[in-house]
Each structure stands twice: as C-alpha cells, then as structure tokens.
C-alpha cells in the first residue's frame, strides 16, 4: 500500500494527503451546524477519507463473491453496505440492485397479500353480524 514519508517540510502536511483540502473543506462546511474548522482538523479529515476509500475498496474486494476475481464491482460495494455494520451508514446510497421484473413481481405479490388480508377481515365481520 502506498504510504507517505513522514517529513517535517513546511508544506509537510499538504503532501501527506492526495485529496484536495479545498474540496474537503467545501463538503465539511456544507454541514449545517459547523462554524469553523481548524487546519489540523481539515488535514485529518482528508487523510481519514483516503483511509476510508482504501478500506472500503479492499474490504469489498475481499468479501466479494468468488475467488480470483479480476474486478471490483458495484454489487461488491452494495453487499458491503448491507452486510457490514461498519459500513451500514452507506446502505441508503449504495442500494442493492434487482431486476425491474423482480421488483414488479414483489409489488404484485405485496398487493395480493394486502387484498387477501382485507378479504379476511370483511369475512369475519359478516360472520359476527
């Protein structure tokens, strides 16, 4: 894993991080209650985000289906979001995909269930009265 040399240059902090600090800052500031962010916090957040990207990618790849796979796919990520507690906060933005035909079938079955239940209820009413 490519890691960075720990140096004490003037711009040492900047070089430890590949993600642009200005962009990280924009995202952080879009959070409603945040007033200001000190420079160290900004650098740490950027660095943490890089570590997060590495972790999400390697975790999803390792836990993906099948061995000797040559690619990391969207469904590897969606599976991670659903199955891992650590990554569960991503579940809404990385939903699993299903075929449209399967979804329509699920909707249809749900409606049929609901109609059947309503039918039972009215039968009971008739029996009592």
């Amino acid at each position, binding site marked *: *894993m*490519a890691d960075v040399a*720990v140096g*004490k240059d003037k711009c040492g*902090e900047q070089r*430890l*991080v*590949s*993600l*642009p600090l200005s*962009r*990280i800052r*924009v*995202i*952080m500031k*879009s*959070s409603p*209650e*945040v*007033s*200001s*962010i*000190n420079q*160290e*916090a900004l*650098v*740490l*957040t950027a*660095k*943490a*985000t*890089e*570590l*997060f*990207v*590495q*972790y*999400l*990618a*390697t975790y999803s*790849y390792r836990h993906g289906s099948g061995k000797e*796979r*040559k*690619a*990391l*796919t*969207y469904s*590897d*990520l*969606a599976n991670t979001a659903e199955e891992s*507690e*650590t990554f569960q*906060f*991503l579940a809404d*933005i*990385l939903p699993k995909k299903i075929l449209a035909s399967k979804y329509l079938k699920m909707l249809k079955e749900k409606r049929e269930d609901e109609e059947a239940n309503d039918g039972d209820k009215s039968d009971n009413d008739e029996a009592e009265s």
Partner: protein
Amino acid sequence: MAERPEDLNLPNAVITRIIKEALPDGVNISKEARSAISRAASVFVLYATSCANNFAMKGKRKTLNASDVLSAMEEMEFQRFITPLKEALE
C-alpha cells in the same frame, strides 16, 4: 445554500488512484464502482464532520479541532484509522 453538485464530489482521478493503490495489481474497478466509492467518500466526510462537530459542541467550542476528528473516528468505529492519523499530525 446552493452548492453546485460537483462541488461536493471528490476528483475522480485521485479517488481512482487511491483505490488502485489499495487493491492487488491487475484488479480492475468498474466505472460504477468507482463512482459509488466517490459518493461514499463524500458521505463519509459529512458523517465524520457531523460527528466531530458534536464533540466540539460538547466542549463548548465553535472550531472543530484535531481531537474532535479523532473522537469522531472512534465513535464511527474506525479506530483503525487513529494511529495513522496521529502519525500524519507529526
């Protein structure tokens, strides 16, 4: 506050590089996967910021500092990041 959509995204080239360096040689990443990881990274920043901000507010401070971010990592169960982050500060 109207942010243009691209402002909340991280640059594709950098994200791709980070992913490629983390995965074994020869493993490809689908475009969709890369885009998903990029979105996830933005969400991570928001979540970490919100969490760190809670710590700042508890400490009655208006400025987010390094220890708030480290506390956030602990809270979010990314303890594994804490040592490399502390090293980055030195």
